[in-house]
């Protein structure tokens, strides 16, 4: 897949070019906003990585012109600035996501995959990241490193609650409300038994307890690798 890299910093651009090429991307690299505009107009890129601090025409202006022209290429903003207003500026103008420097390469690749997938408009029935613990909302199955397995209704409800916004800590009360119906008798250990069972299925580290607060599933929890 082709990606356009717009980055004026020689060392960073070169590093990214090399890293992305290594991961199988075909990378076009430009260092100026004007060149980026013509490249985007001509080329058919799966994704654009746009640095905001460009000489001459800056990244925000490039972004505005791209979107004004009706081009819907997935665009990921890379910025050294994390002032809140700039984020909102970028997202308002039609950036699909932003990443604050310095970022881990794995993070960049994951975000690239995510914006491309979102832009493809594929009905996203699977939540969770590739290679990590995933949940198929359509079939109510869990995917552990791509391998599917069935879940009971309560197991699904538990995992769905925890993975909806992964990383979020949910308290016992919040989880019980999500899993059990109104007026349903919930034994004091029911949730613990359920979580214990899930850990045996998914790996001990899949559902983490946070003392005093509740439970969470780590966004990039590999699952299975206990």
């Amino acid at each position: 897949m082709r990606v356009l890299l717009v980055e004026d910093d020689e060392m960073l651009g070169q590093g990214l070019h090399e890293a992305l090429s290594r991961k199988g991307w075909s990378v076009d690299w430009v260092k100026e906003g004007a060149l980026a505009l013509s490249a985007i107009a001509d080329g058919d890129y799966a994704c654009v990585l746009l640095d905001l601090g460009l000489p001459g025409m800056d990244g925000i202006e490039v972004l505005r012109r791209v979107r004004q022209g009706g081009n819907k290429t997935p665009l990921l903003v890379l910025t050294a600035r994390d002032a809140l207003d700039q984020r909102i500026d970028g997202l308002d103008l039609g950036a699909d996501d932003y990443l604050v420097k310095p970022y881990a390469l794995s993070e960049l690749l994951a975000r690239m995959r995510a914006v491309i997938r979102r832009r493809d408009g594929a009905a996203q029935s699977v939540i969770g990241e590739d290679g990590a613990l995933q949940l198929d909302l359509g079939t109510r199955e869990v995917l552990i490193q791509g391998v599917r397995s069935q879940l009971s209704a309560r197991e699904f409800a538990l995992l769905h609650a925890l993975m909806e916004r992964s990383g979020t800590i949910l308290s016992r009360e919040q989880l019980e409300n999500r899993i059990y119906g109104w007026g349903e008798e919930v034994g004091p250990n029911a949730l613990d038994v359920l979580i214990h069972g899930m850990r045996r299925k998914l790996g001990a580290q899949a559902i983490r307890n946070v003392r005093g607060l509740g439970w969470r599933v780590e966004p990039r929890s590999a699952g299975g690798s206990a």
Partner: protein
Amino acid sequence: MKEGRLHAGVPRTFSIWRRLLWWLVPTFLAVAVVTAALSYGTFTHMVADFLDGQMVQLGDSIARYGQPTAPSAQVDDGAIAKGDYVVQVFEPDGRPVATSWSGLPPGQPLRPGLHDVRAGGRAWRVYVAAGAGGRTIQVFQSSDFRSGLAVERAGMAAVPVLVLVPLLMLVMLGVARGISRSLRAIGQQAARQDAHSIEELPLAHVPDEIRPLVASFNDLLGRLRDSFVAQRRFVQDAAHELRTPIAAVRVQLENLRDELAGSAGNRQLAQLEAGLQRAQRLVDQLLRMSRQEAAPTEPPGPVDVEAQVRDSIHGLIALADRRQVDLGLVAQEGDEAATLHCTPADLRSALDNLIENAVRYTPEGGVVDVHLKREDARVVVEVVDTGPGIPPQYLARVFDRFYRVPGSQAEGSGLGLPIAQAAARRCGLRLSLRNRGDRSGLAARLESTE
């Protein structure tokens, strides 16, 4: 004490009131003395002329109209002192005929005219008139009485000036108090300034004389504000600019890791990455600090402490997991919700930095407890870790910017605790650190001061 702070370190050598008194009171006293002296000079002549006139009239009338040979009115010592006349009559042969006061024995008659004499232990003014039938009439009046009269008159002239002195002191005291009140008000406004909000001092109630001082102070404040803004902007720009090269190095390191996969350089690579992490963290903390120094973007209000603690743990649980540190909340059951009046961002900043610090300095397998409790009316948050703690001799220094405890291993920036302290202070919280007594570890305690 607010006032005490204004005077701190400035010796009290100068008071407007005292300086006014120092110059004006002696001036007034000098004026009083000069007035009295002038009056004395004037009155001496006036009194002498007037009384001499009276004596001449009396003497002449006795001489002309043949007064009784022995004056009927006898006088005494007290009357003499009050200015009564003594009349003596002599025969043409110089024999005394009569005297009106036995205290002044008649001597030889004097030549006609006015004289000053001493007799009977006193000074006298005397008028000698030639009477009918060759008799001589002498009229005496006490010189002491006459000079006393002049002194009295001169004293009366100086009295108004002397009465003015205490009045003047009172008035000046009032004026000086008024001036120092307005100066103190200006001083308090100046003392309220901090780096977040430098505002110019109002000129409304400033005396004209002080106005140039306040105006130039305002000018200075303006420049100070500009330089604070410039400094913050510089730190932010510098931190932002540093991110790109750090990102570049990081990407290159990852490329290198792929290149060297499985070979011997892994340990060195890990060291490099740790160094890079530290630089990155330093840049992030610099940004946080300079943002914290900027004016707050939201108004303070009631903030639910437990919600902020939860959010903070939530944000740092990934770091704790990565470092295999057991991070958890220990809250007392059944406490009513603890709230503080501050901005959520400040409270979060204090909590984030303390908890992050605890997680970073706690070795793998360690425990970080965040206690939330109430002690009497105070809200207390304690972050207790199982790290190495801080040697007592360094406890006071860890709040200094960029200070790192010698020999510490974690990738600290030396800014976490100063940031936490500044944020806590703005929340009305006191931050204190102590080493645990039961085992190694640090306990960072935030408590509300109200």
